[in-house]
Structure formats: C-alpha cells, structure tokens
C-alpha cells in the first residue's frame, strides 16, 4: 500500500459517524412508537405506529442500505418490490373490504 493511500484511509470512527447518528434516530423513533402504543389516541394507534415503522424502514433503506448512493437501476429494482406489493395489498383489500 502506498504512503498516500495510507494517509487517506479513514478511521473506523469516521466511517461509523453517520450510521451511529441514524441508529440514534431509529432508537428515538422506537421509543416514541412504544410510548404512543400506550397513549389513548384510539383508533389511531395502529396507523401512527405503522407510519413510524415506515419512517424507520425509510431511514434504514436510504442511509444504512445505502440507496442514497445506489445506481438508478438498483433503486428501480428496490422500488419494484414495493410497487408489486401495493398491487397485491390494494387488490386483496378491494375484495375483502367490499364483501357484504
């Protein structure tokens, strides 16, 4: 390894800075979620907790799964999973929720 490469190598702490910040945000969201599950805001408890879970998954996907830096092709494939999921859920509930 050249001296130049050695000099430009990041330390573990530099690499860990962003993931640790995301981790702190995820723990705060988890705590909010656990507290709100006990809050008397029915019938919105489930919706609020699912929205928080969605935000947590978004943070994880963008920062830790690195979709932020991923190629357009990878983002497209990641979005396609959700796209088909929306179809499945929407069509299934169109049936079940419209039954007499």
């Amino acid at each position, binding site marked *: 390894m050249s001296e130049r490469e050695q000099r430009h190598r990041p330390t573990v702490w530099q690499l860990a800075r962003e993931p640790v910040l995301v981790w702190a945000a995820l723990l705060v969201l988890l705590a909010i979620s656990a507290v709100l599950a006990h809050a008397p805001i029915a019938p919105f408890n489930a919706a609020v907790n699912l929205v928080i879970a969605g935000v947590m998954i978004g943070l*994880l996907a963008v920062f830790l799964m690195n979709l932020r830096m991923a*190629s357009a092709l990878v983002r497209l494939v990641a979005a396609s999973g959700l796209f088909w999921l929306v179809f499945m859920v929407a069509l299934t*509930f169109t049936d079940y929720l419209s039954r007499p």
Partner: protein
Amino acid sequence: MSDVSAAVREPWPDLTVQRQGVGLGIWVFLASEVLFFGALITAYGIYRSIHPAAFLAAAKHTELVYGTINTVLLLTSSVTMTVALRAAEARLRRATIGCLAVTLVLGVGFLLCKGLEYRDDLREGFFPGAGFPLADPPTQLFWMLYWIMTGIHAIHLSAGILVVGVVAMLFWRRVLPVQDSTMEGIATYWHFVDTVWILLFPLLYLVGRI
C-alpha cells in the same frame, strides 16, 4: 497478485462494476422477499380487519419487553453491519472482521431472546389448538400468525448469521480479501431482515396496549 485483482472475478472488468452486480442481484432477490413477507402481512391485515376486537385482545399477551429488546438488538446490528461494509470498502481488514463479529453476537442475542420469549409463550399456552387460554376463537388466528411470522423471520436471521459467520471466517483466514463484493450482498440482506422486524414489531407487540 494484489488483493484487489484477487477480488475481481469473471466476467467483471473491475471491482466497482462487480459490486454493482452483486448489489443489483441481492435487490432482485429482496424484491421477491418483499412479496413473500408482504403476503403474510396481507393475511394479517385481512384477519385483523375481520376480527378487530379479537386481535386487540390476543396481542395484549405478547411479551413487549422481549420484543423491544430484540428490536434494539437488531437496529444495533444493522449499524455494526454498515460499519463493517464501509470498513471493508476502505480495506480495513481488522475493523471489518471485528464489526462482523459484533453483528454476529447481536444476531445470536436476538435468537436467544426470542427463544426465552417462545418459552414464556408456550408456558402460558399461547399456541393455537386445544387448551388455548383465550375464549374467543379468532384470537388463535392472531397467535397462529405470530408463530408463523416470527418463526420465518427467525429462519431468515439464522441464515444471515450462518452466512456472516462463514464470510467472517473466510476474511479471517484470508481466503477472501475484505474488499470483495461479498460484503455488499450480506450487508443488504442483513438490513432487509431488520426491516421485516421493524414492521412486525408494531403489528405483533404494539397492538392492544391501551
């Protein structure tokens, strides 16, 4: 042969393109996994929409403390996995192996905690079938889904633990250089298992708490 050229395989021209190839492949696999878990969660949604009161009554009996500890363990393991991947890209061999080892310990910790929780669930009789402790029959549907969802999640996590263990050993023995594209694949898979749990947690543990 340098470490970098040892990591590049046919048909890839260089390591960057090879990493992109692995990344794309694992995301295609994960898109199919989204549909697999999506079908289970849709089934949960259908039964919950048909039996809302029974689901609230049944979910009260899941172990919130174990569930929360496990969520913290998995979230932390995702962070150590990310640091392992970034360290691998920066060719920091010891840091990569160290972070993979911590990730592995956190994953095993999750399974141990889950095992204790299963033991408590079984002691209280929350397994669908004869002798189920709740009177309303649809409460068994919730618990059936609890066992299937958490069980399949645990199988996915076990597979992740196995692969992370093997890859860490290959790095340790210098069979694979750490900057190999393998890290890209296992890191993305590990995070996916974490995201599934993030969604299962409010569906199974945060319901019926008021």
